[in-house]
């Protein structure tokens, strides 16, 4: 980031390559729309580039990136309605059985739809925790809340998901 702060675009390319997957995962799981997720990720990296000369490494870079991605995702959902889950492309699935494949797809759609029914902050906390393995501290920093509040968000989110996904939890 130091080199990027001095205008070294190649050094910044390295940062993009290293962290774009995590940023993309959070954005696409939150927005459930590939195009909007791409816009958010690009916008996030541009903002980081613009502010690179003022960057202070007070936290992990990933946390800094998530903070920006979270804010942009939440802004995005406030501006426009997300596309329905069914519009997403098929999931890559290595299983040979067509029935199993169908079941996995159905389950994935159910989980995505359930996540979409959560309030923004609960959804983001769940995504960061279970898909990016963020600790409570990192979630709290990204969402600009206390650790206790992050724990409460996760707890409420999980309770709601247990209700929404009861069918899949019994199987």
């Amino acid at each position, binding site marked *: 980031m130091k080199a990027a702060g*001095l*205008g070294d*675009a190649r050094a*910044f*390319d390295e940062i*993009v*390559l290293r962290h*774009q*997957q995590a940023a*993309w*995962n959070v954005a*696409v*799981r939150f927005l459930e729309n*590939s195009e909007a997720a*791409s816009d958010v*990720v*690009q916008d996030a*990296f*541009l903002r980081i*580039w*613009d502010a690179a*000369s003022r960057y202070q490494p007070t936290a992990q870079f990933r946390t800094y990136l998530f903070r920006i991605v979270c804010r942009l995702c939440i802004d995005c959902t406030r501006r426009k309605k997300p596309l329905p889950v069914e519009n*997403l*492309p098929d*999931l*890559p699935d290595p299983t040979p059985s067509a029935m199993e494949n169908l079941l*996995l797809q159905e*389950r*994935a759609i159910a*989980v*995505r739809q359930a996540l979409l029914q959560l309030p923004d902050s609960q959804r983001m906390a*769940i995504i960061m*925790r*279970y*898909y990016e393995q963020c*600790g*409570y501290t990192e979630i709290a920093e990204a969402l600009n809340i206390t650790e206790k509040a992050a*724990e409460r968000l*996760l*707890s409420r989110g*999980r309770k709601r*998901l*247990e209700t929404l*996904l009861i069918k*899949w*939890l019994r199987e």
Partner: protein
Amino acid sequence: MDCGRIQEKLTAYADGQLNPKERETVEEHLRVCPACRESALQAQRLSNLLVSVPALPVPTDLTAQIQAAVRNRSARSKIHRMPAIMVWWREASVPLRAAASFILVVTFALGTLMSLKITQATSRPLEPVVDYGLNSFAGAPDGSLEQAYLDLLTTSNGGEQ
């Protein structure tokens, strides 16, 4: 600890975010309480269900899009086009910056002082002094030492006419 308190801790327990003491308390309770044990299992099932949904692959052109946008922004940005001296200044340590500042100030001060001296030296009114000196010899009789000295000063070839 009662079931209500334990239930509150089950999310953090399932997430592995409890400290060792809290974890031990929860596990102790789970050993004797079937209802809370079932809740803990349900929490684990939910975690497994959530993580079973794979991530979508990053679009192949995303990296190129970001890099192009960054370069485009960079070309327009003045922030990232700092002169080399500013880049050096930003990179230098505090003692180095202090030393550089000191050298700069001392150099500037010496330069100013020297230029003042030169100005004073070159702007001294030499002509009146010379006139005064020459005038003081004006009344000297021909053949006197004063007249010879005056001749020596006023001729360019060392006194020979």
